[in-house]
C-alpha cells in the first residue's frame, strides 16, 4: 500500500459530491463528465451547449487552480506510447457514449440515485478496469 491517501481522497470525493449536488440543486442536471463533454459539442440548442461548455471550462480551471497552489508530481510514464493513449481515448469515448456514462455519471450520480443501470455499469467498468490492468501487466511485464 504505497502512497495511500485516505484523507485527501475523502476530502476530494466530498468536493466532487458537493459539485454534483450543486448542479442538480440549481440546474437540475446530472454531473456526468462524459455526457457533458459530448453535449458541449453536439447538443442541439445553443443554451444546452453553453452550460456544458461553462462546466468544462470550470473543470479545467479548478484543476489548474489547485495545481498552481499545490503542485502534484505526476511521474512520466514510459510504458504508454502516443498510439496507446489515442487507442485508449477512442475506446473510452466509444464506451462511455455506448454505455451512457463514466465514473462520474454512473459511479457517483447514478449510484447516489440508486439507479440499477448505473450500479451495474459501475461494477462492470471497475471489474473490467481491474482485469485490464492485470492483463496489461502480464503483457508488458510490469
Amino acid at each position, binding site marked *: 500500500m504505497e502512497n495511500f491517501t485516505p484523507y485527501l481522497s475523502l476530502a476530494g470525493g466530498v468536493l466532487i459530491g458537493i459539485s454534483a449536488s450543486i448542479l442538480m440543486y440549481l440546474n437540475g442536471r446530472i454531473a456526468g463528465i462524459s455526457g457533458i463533454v459530448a453535449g458541449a459539442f453536439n447538443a442541439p440548442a445553443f443554451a444546452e451547449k453553453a452550460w456544458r461548455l461553462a462546466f468544462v471550462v470550470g473543470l479545467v480551471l479548478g484543476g489548474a487552480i489547485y495545481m498552481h497552489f499545490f503542485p502534484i508530481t505526476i511521474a512520466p510514464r514510459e510504458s504508454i506510447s502516443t498510439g496507446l493513449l489515442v487507442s485508449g*481515448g477512442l475506446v473510452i469515448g466509444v464506451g462511455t457514449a455506448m454505455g451512457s456514462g463514466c465514473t462520474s455519471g454512473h459511479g457517483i450520480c447514478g449510484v447516489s440515485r440508486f439507479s440499477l443501470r448505473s450500479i451495474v455499469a459501475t461494477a462492470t467498468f471497475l471489474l473490467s478496469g481491474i482485469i485490464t490492468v492485470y492483463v496489461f501487466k502480464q503483457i508488458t511485464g510490469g
Partner: protein
Amino acid sequence: MLKIFSALAAGVIFGVGLALSQMVNPNKVINFLDITGEWDPSLIFVLGGAVLTTTIAYRFIFSRSKPVFADDFQLPTLLQIDRQLFIGAVLFGVGWGVIGYCPGPAVASLGFGLEEPLIVVISMLAGMLFYRAIVRR
C-alpha cells in the same frame, strides 16, 4: 445566464475535487485498479466520499418540486439493463485500465501543461462523436 454561472462554479469545484483527491494522477488510478500489485485503495475513499455526499444531498434536492434555475430535474429515462450498457461499460473499463484516465480527470488536467491529457481528451471526443454518428444513421 445564471445556469451558466452555476455550471461554471460546479465545474471549478469538481476540478478542485479531482485534483485534491489525486484522481488526476494516472499512476495512482492504475495502482488502485492493480489489486494484485501494490494496491492503493485511495480511490475507494474518493468514490465513497462523493457518493455519500451526493446521496444525502439528492434526498433533500429531490424533495423539491424543481431546481432553482430550471423548470425540471432532467434524469435519465432509460431503465433497462441492455447490451449497450454492458458492452459500453466493459470498453470504458478497458480504456481506463490501459491509460489510467477517465473523462473527468483527463479534462481537469488539461491546464497542467502535460501532453497526455490533451491526447486523451481529443481521442475520447473523437470516439464519442464517432459512436453518435454511427448510431444516428
